[in-house]
């Protein structure tokens, strides 16, 4: 494996291997230094906290040193340097590049310029493949399987890159059913839906389907997407995961969220057995270590 641009770069067996490898790494007292004397460039053209730090920690755990930046300020990009030239420069200093960028398709373009592996850490509203491996690993830890489950994706399904990657990754498995819960303005993109090979249904009111769902994946609804603020307020109210919603869920169902959250999950939900988003966040480093393993082939 060289570049990781889309979840489509992972086969079903890649997912299985990554889950097993992550299990192993989580139980290791000392990590194998497979990235010893290697440098990982963290090229975060968009600011990020969680993803940046977890990739950095994963690289350091495997013996690598890291270089990079988070946000354009203070870099030559702020002076107008184009992406291709920044990637060429990083090729001189590093052994692989982890890239986050505000433009859709930036990671693929970077991989065409780069001679060293490129990992997509989120490109615009396009994809965020490593987050999906974390999401799926959390599901695997809780259910021992991905197949046969009923999923509900709720919130902004149009502009959230984690949703695109999640829906695409499910094509590698056999979900029982996927409910796409969103206001019509934020429904999943048609071109993504056309790729899906499993049963799905778009719904507006989660009450219709909440009792069936095993995995509820919540995304933040971004206020700035709405031309009319009153529309946003209306929609925002209907998609808050609160104790009332949790009470309708199955006892063994789980709630996931890529974080950071704003108001879409009430704090009181954090203590319920269904809340798994902090557990999910805790897997970020070992999953990304496993991904580094796959890239270097050890």
């Amino acid at each position, binding site marked *: 494996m060289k570049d990781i641009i889309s979840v489509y770069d992972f086969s079903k067996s890649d997912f299985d291997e990554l889950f097993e490898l992550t299990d192993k790494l989580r139980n290791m007292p000392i990590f194998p230094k497979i990235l010893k004397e290697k440098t990982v460039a963290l090229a975060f053209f968009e600011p990020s906290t969680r993803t940046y730090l977890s990739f950095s920690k994963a690289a350091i755990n495997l013996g690598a040193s890291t270089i990079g930046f988070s946000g354009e300020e203070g870099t030559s990009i702020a002076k107008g340097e184009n*992406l*291709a030239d920044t990637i060429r420069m990083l090729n001189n200093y590093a052994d692989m590049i982890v890239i986050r*960028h*505000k*433009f*859709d398709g930036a990671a693929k373009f970077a991989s065409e310029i780069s001679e060293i592996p490129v990992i997509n850490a989120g490109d615009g509203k396009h994809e965020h493949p490593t987050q999906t491996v974390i999401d799926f690993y959390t599901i695997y830890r809780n259910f021992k399987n991905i197949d046969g489950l009923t999923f509900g994706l709720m919130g902004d399904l149009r502009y959230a890159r984690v949703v695109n990657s999640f829906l695409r990754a499910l094509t590698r498995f056999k979900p029982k059913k996927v409910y796409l819960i969103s206001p019509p303005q934020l429904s999943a993109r048609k071109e993504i839906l056309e790729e899906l090979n499993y049963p799905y249904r778009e719904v507006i009111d989660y009450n219709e389907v909440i009792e069936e769902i095993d995995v509820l994946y919540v995304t933040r609804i971004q206020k700035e997407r709405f031309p009319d603020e009153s529309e946003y307020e209306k929609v925002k109210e209907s998609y808050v995961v609160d104790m009332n919603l949790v009470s309708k869920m199955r006892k063994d169902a789980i709630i996931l969220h890529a974080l950071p959250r704003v108001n879409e999950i009430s704090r009181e939900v954090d203590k319920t057995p269904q809340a798994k988003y902090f557990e999910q966040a805790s897997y970020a480093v070992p999953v990304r270590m496993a991904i580094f393993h796959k890239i270097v082939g050890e």
Partner: protein
Amino acid sequence: METVNKKELIVSKIKNGTVIDHIPAGRALAVLRILKIAEGYRIALVMNVESKKMGKKDIVKIENKEVDEKEANLITLIAPTATINIIRDYEVVEKKKLKIPDVVKGLLKCTNLMCITNNDVEAMPEFKKISEKPLKMKCVYCDTVIDENEILKQILGSKS
């Protein structure tokens, strides 16, 4: 060329080059745009002539240029009915078979303003065919799908 006999010839035969016949009326200039024909070539354009098959059609003759497979396929995007004849020494030596191209690089723009191809000077737009009927092509960078209307709009401009 079904409608042109010696008496009706508007432009003379060419010795070597390409004759593109059965272009939908009004699209000859767009065909030249696709072929990126600029200065230097001797070209004959016949527009809105009678056609038994099509009612009206355009014909393009280009001297000393043989349209290749890739160029022929691009022509299908706006002129699926076109026939392409390669001429050597006044004779048709080859009739190109047209096929909608699997990949179109550099010709079409992505409609997603946040696509990297609209934001980096070096990123060249590239589309892959996902279906022929209806014609749909997908941006290889951001997965935005463009349809036949959009393709026609981009190539024909406002003259469609």
